């Protein structure tokens, strides 16, 4: 029986969960150091800021008091599992078919009808009936996180580092300036936070979903009206743990 969540997905999920929580909270501490955001290459005058950011309180930051050095220590450290993890999960998703099976959308998935149907199905059957693939809203949301927010976070983070000027000046130009990269880093962080909240609320609706992210769960047979599942692809990570996987 195939697992609903590949081992690679589960390992990445929990490492990434720890990483983004620490990155977000230490990032709020770093934000407190200069609470203005700018567009373009430079910016230091609050009069030029497009956004004056609030001072984030101690309970929301790592560490729990203003300490730029420690916050940067945490941020710089957790950037490693986050950054390496984003590369890892993309390679794993492409290799094991998770991306093609669950995250690629068709034009039909983007229609209002598909969105309404997804939400109706979700509230109607409860979160338990999720075994047969992702609905259009899930595909769009997860696709947006994997395809836009996580890479944007990683690349804008690299572009903010002055060392990047030495090896990837094109990266800073791609963002049209370091302060633009810094602003997008901030915006993407809140995008991930928004996803995080939705994700937690929906997962808490059915504790089995959380358990499955540890055990892997069981992938149910697709119902007849659903599109045919992707052909099986070798999954080295799964194969290593469970023998030959039976994709269904």
């Amino acid at each position: 029986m195939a697992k609903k969540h590949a081992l690679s997905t589960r390992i990445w999920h929990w490492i990434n969960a720890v990483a983004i929580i620490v990155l977000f909270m230490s990032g709020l501490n770093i934000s407190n150091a200069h609470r203005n955001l700018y567009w373009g290459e430079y910016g230091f005058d609050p009069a030029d800021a497009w956004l004056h950011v609030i001072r984030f309180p101690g309970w929301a930051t790592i560490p729990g008091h203003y300490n730029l050095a420690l916050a940067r220590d945490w941020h710089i450290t957790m950037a490693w599992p986050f950054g390496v993890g984003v590369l890892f999960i993309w390679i794993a998703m492409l290799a094991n078919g998770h991306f093609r099976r669950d995250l690629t959308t068709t034009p039909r998935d983007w229609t209002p009808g598909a969105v309404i149907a997804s939400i109706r199905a979700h509230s109607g059957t409860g979160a338990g009936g999720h075994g047969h693939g992702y609905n259009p809203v899930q595909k769009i949301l997860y696709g947006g996180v994997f395809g836009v927010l996580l890479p944007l976070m990683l690349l804008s983070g690299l572009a903010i580092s002055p060392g990047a000027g030495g090896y990837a000046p094109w990266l800073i130009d791609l963002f049209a300036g370091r302060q633009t990269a810094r602003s997008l880093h901030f915006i993407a962080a809140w995008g991930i936070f928004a996803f995080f909240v939705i994700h937690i609320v929906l997962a808490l609706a059915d504790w089995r979903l959380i358990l499955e992210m540890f055990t892997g769960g069981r992938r149910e047979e697709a119902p007849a009206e659903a599109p045919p599942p992707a052909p099986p692809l070798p999954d080295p990570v799964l194969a290593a743990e469970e023998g030959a996987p039976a994709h269904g």
Partner: protein
Amino acid sequence: MVDLPRRSLIAGIAALGATACSKINESPATKGLFKAAEDGHRALHRALASKQGMAKEFRPDQRSPTFRGNGSVTVADPFYQQQLASGFPDWRLAVTGLVEQPLALSLAEVKALPQRTQITRHDCVEGWSAIGEWQGPQLAHLLDAAKVKKEAKFIVFRCADTLYGRDYYESIDMVDAYHPQTIIAHSLNGEPLPEKNGAPLRMRIERQLGYKQAKYVKAIEAVESFDKIGQGGGGFWEDVAGYQWYAGV
């Protein structure tokens, strides 16, 4: 006294959490992890960029209208103030330490060396950036003139300013010391450095953050190790606040 058990419980848990967190922050294992992460970033940057990988240089019209002064913006030392008022006629830049030929250069001599002009972005650790045009000789040129000995591993910058009663200093490794954009700037946007930006001489180390850009430089010292300098962190902010010695992230 009205006791609110629930509130004290919450306060207790919060205090416990805070204590646990500060224990985590101060444990040798965590410090070792932080150091490994910092070293990893440096190794990655050095692997991806060549030793000479250049920070972006801008056009004159891309400069910021002004250049913010930060950290020390004035120097209390009476000799400094007297020199500032008269154009630094008796100021000397010493090149010392592990060198075969110690130097003591006047400002005029520094300006007479081959010059490099670069319009670069200054990134403060706090997050802001400013862009200015800097001019001065390459540090490599001075180090070659002083004949740095082989055992030298770091270059330390001694500064005239004090913060919190301590002398400001900074240090970089030989890769950054010999980088083409590492210059000892005497002018900003075509004018002699203002006091707030580090008159008469300041460092530009373009692939690192602002706190590495030592201002009011009076001596450049080649050393094998900076363990015995200050508190051993390799710089003022590294000692005082625990900032990362490698400020390329």
